[in-house]
């Protein structure tokens, strides 16, 4: 299945890009996606960072199963306002 990933803020800087499309096995979770992305982007992991996860603009848990064409964003600690 095809998953669209967007990177923002510190993750965008570490990935070196703002968006990527990723092929994943059916039934993969957000956690699986994060593991796969580490292989593509050596500097993506920020030690100690606690992220939130969004699929199709809704917050979800890290074990959320993904579907074809889902948009996933790994959300580093927010600082709006």
């Amino acid at each position, binding site marked *: 299945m095809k998953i669209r990933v*967007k990177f*923002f*803020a*510190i993750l*965008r800087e570490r990935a070196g890009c703002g968006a990527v499309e990723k092929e994943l096995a059916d039934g993969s979770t957000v956690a699986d996606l994060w593991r796969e992305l580490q292989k593509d982007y050596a500097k993506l992991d920020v030690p*100690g*960072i*606690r*992220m*939130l996860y*969004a699929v199709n*603009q809704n*917050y979800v*848990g890290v074990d959320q199963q993904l579907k074809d064409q889902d948009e996933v*964003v790994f*959300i*580093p*600690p*927010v*600082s*709006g*306002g």
Partner: protein
Amino acid sequence: MFRVTDKPINLQELVDYVIDPEAGAIATFIGTTRNNNEGRKVIALDYEAYGEMAEKELARIGADAAQNWPICRMAILHRLGPVQIGEASVAIAVSSAHRDAAFAASRFAIEEIKKTVPIWKKEVYEGGEVWIGSQTGQPLPQR
């Protein structure tokens, strides 16, 4: 009105939006860029957002405020991109029949914005720049 913008904020636009014949009170809040933070001399803040979700979360905050207090209308506008010292990064306006609800809802809104809205600020200071955000993270938003 729950939006992000890359233009300077005009508070009057938000005030005009929340004016309501049933309202006897309008409360506003503006967040501005401060010239210092944690001992660093700040030059500017640079805001980035997951735009579509940010507006969705701002609207969710508005809906929650309306559930918790008897407000008439609400508007939140968050600016993106560079925001200089003294300039507004976020503005909130809320109207209600009596002032308690307007004060409380505007307070609630800024606290919630800082917790769940996918917007990030990068602090440009004398000597470098750093993404602001607690590295211990924050709890999963409860729905």
